[in-house]
């Protein structure tokens, strides 16, 4: 059994992994950059090793430094978390070459799923539906135009090596096709050094639905049902829920089976996620596989009761899965809201800085996974996510209203956060009705981005409170000398007292 794990990550997910380690009696090693000396993951760990300066390219992304830290602390395993090196096949290989357990799939699985074209090919072979389109890189423009015609508009042209929206073009009609093709190629070669593209059917109202799977090295694969992740900003998920409001029992079973087939087709081991696009008619298409833990894994934990990090560790230790498919149920409904240090009203501009005060919500059905604390300064170098708020309810309605209640209890002072924005999502009638797709934020932007209406009278109270705080500041600054308005009051009062006598 594993006895000491180095967590090759930081912040929220590092702390979350350490919590499971602690419950398993496994020692934990944190790594940290200059900017992270005070980060909670350093404080929470049993050991902590400094691995370089603040930019992640000089610390969290430097494979050798992490492996050295693991060796110097006698760690027998490395958990990569999400992001950073978690889907880096070369890193997985290097770790294993050192005789250290990499808590994740084989580098082959990572590679097969990492390349979009190869992933499509493997899925097709495994009889998992993919979005209609090409499988191969297309170099010839004329051929490309033919393929587009065959698929039917609208289509999406995507860079083979792509990501982050670069080298992507949406085409609605024939007259736009050639221009779009050329500009996608030129952007792709600039960004990735590879101008090959592929072409896919564009789904106009897609849902992003993913299935969590667990696979051991003894051939056992189970799924832990779906997560609906269609609420996204800039292609990043901000709200996830399970079950999906559009799911039917038949579709759930079918997609679950396909997810297992997808994992089997790459001999997957560990926890992973098969992402699908689902259209209005409930046709589903394989999108990609994430060969790691997901940010949104807690909602699955809540409805199934399975601690996914513990399962990852057990699988990596060579254990057989403790559960069969029939042991896994969905109990109630769970929602996750990601709390970001950002300003949604200002194009989601990041808002790092000092946390002056934080009050986390509590009570039945509420979980927070965070890492910031009072007096902590969020560094400018890393992801703006500071915590995840997860609520559970017997029904979807209860989970939503509990989320709203919890968001109202959540106080973070000193920085801007997405909390108010998330409240507006929870109050949106179409969200409440479960009628939303990946365009939700765009479609509802007028309501979502306009600050809530004033609660009657609050402006007056805001003025008064600011004034009282000003008086207190003045008292402290001036060593007890009261400012003007305050002394006026005193004088007035004195006069009254005199006249009363």
């Amino acid at each position, binding site marked *: 059994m594993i006895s000491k794990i180095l967590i090759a990550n930081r912040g929220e997910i590092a702390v979350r992994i350490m919590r499971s380690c602690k419950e398993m009696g496994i020692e934990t090693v944190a790594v940290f950059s200059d900017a992270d000396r005070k980060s909670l993951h350093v404080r929470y760990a049993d050991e902590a090793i400094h691995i370089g300066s603040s930019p992640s390219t000089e610390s969290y992304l430097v494979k050798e430094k992490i492996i050295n830290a693991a060796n110097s602390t006698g760690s027998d395993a490395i958990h990569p978390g999400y992001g950073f090196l978690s889907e880096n096949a070369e890193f997985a290989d290097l770790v294993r070459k050192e005789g250290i357990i990499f808590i994740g799939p084989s580098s082959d699985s990572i590679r097969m799923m990492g390349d979009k074209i190869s992933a499509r090919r493997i899925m097709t072979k495994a009889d998992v539906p993919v979005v209609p389109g090409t499988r191969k890189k297309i170099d010839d423009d004329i051929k490309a135009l033919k393929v587009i015609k065959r698929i039917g508009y609208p289509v999406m042209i995507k860079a083979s090596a792509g990501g982050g929206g670069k080298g992507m073009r949406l085409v609605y009609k024939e007259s736009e096709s050639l221009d779009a093709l050329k500009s996608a190629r030129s952007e792709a070669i600039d960004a990735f050094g590879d101008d090959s593209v592929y072409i896919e059917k564009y789904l106009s109202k897609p849902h992003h639905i993913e299935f969590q799977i667990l696979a051991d090295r003894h051939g056992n694969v189970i799924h832990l049902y779906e997560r609906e992740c269609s609420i996204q900003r800039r292609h990043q998920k901000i709200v996830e829920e399970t079950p999906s409001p559009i799911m039917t029992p038949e579709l759930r079973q079918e997609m679950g089976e396909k997810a297992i087939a997808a994992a089997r087709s790459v001999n997957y081991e560990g926890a992973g996620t098969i992402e699908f696009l689902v259209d209005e008619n409930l046709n589903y298409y394989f999108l990609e596989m994430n060969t790691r833990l997901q940010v949104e894994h807690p909602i699955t934990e809540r409805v199934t009761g399975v601690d996914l990090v513990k399962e990852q560790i057990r699988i990596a230790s060579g254990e057989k899965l403790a559960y069969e498919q029939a042991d896994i149920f969905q109990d109630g409904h769970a929602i996750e809201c990601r709390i970001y240090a*950002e300003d949604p009203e200002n194009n989601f501009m*990041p808002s790092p800085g000092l946390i002056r*005060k934080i009050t986390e919500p509590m009570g039945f059905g509420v979980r927070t996974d965070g890492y910031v604390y009072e007096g902590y300064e969020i560094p400018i170098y890393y992801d703006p996510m500071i915590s995840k708020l997860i609520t559970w309810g017997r029904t979807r309605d209860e989970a939503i209203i509990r989320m709203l209640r919890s968001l109202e209890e959540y106080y973070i002072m000193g920085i801007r956060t997405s909390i108010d924005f998330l409240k507006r999502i929870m109050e949106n009638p179409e969200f409440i009705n479960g009628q939303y797709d990946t365009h939700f934020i765009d479609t509802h932007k007028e309501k979502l981005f306009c600050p809530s209406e004033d609660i009657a*009278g609050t*402006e007056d109270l805001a003025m*008064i*409170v600011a004034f*009282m705080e000003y008086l207190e500041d003045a008292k402290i600054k001036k060593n007890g000398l009261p400012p003007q308005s305050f002394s006026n*009051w005193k004088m007035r009062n004195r006069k009254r007292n005199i006249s009363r006598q």
Partner: protein
Amino acid sequence: MSAIEIKIGNRTEPVEIIEIKGNKIRISLGIKEFCLDLVKVEDNIYSILLEGKSYDIEVAATKKKNVYSVRYINNAYNVEIVDAELRYYQNRLKSAGLSEENIISCPMPGKVVRVMVNEGDSVDTGDVVIVVSAMKMESEYKSGKTGKIKEVLVGEGDIIDANMPLIVLE
């Protein structure tokens, strides 16, 4: 001797405390008078009872002189306390040509990626003058007026604080 005024957006009201007895405060704001039970329960948090209703209101000083950021549930305000000292200070800034519209700053901490102008350059309203990155996202900051660059206070690669003056226009 001018009184203290409180400002939110375009609204400005004179304020005066009439009476304080323990937590109980009588205070006038413009033409209104309030009778509050007010107590500071935590650093930066006041609890107010007004006609039975309970309000938990957050307040924090900002980096701007006499400006407080106040929040109550979904409502956030920037409240400015205008006292004699602030008036004097603002007048002095103005006469030195350092009124706020001449200073370009960034509301968040970050790292300067590119400075697009040099001292002496002419800029138009809307011209991007500086690019700042934080948390893997770049933001562009534009000139709010047409004029000449008087001073560039930061260089590429510098780590900057929120609301720190970066570029000064004439």
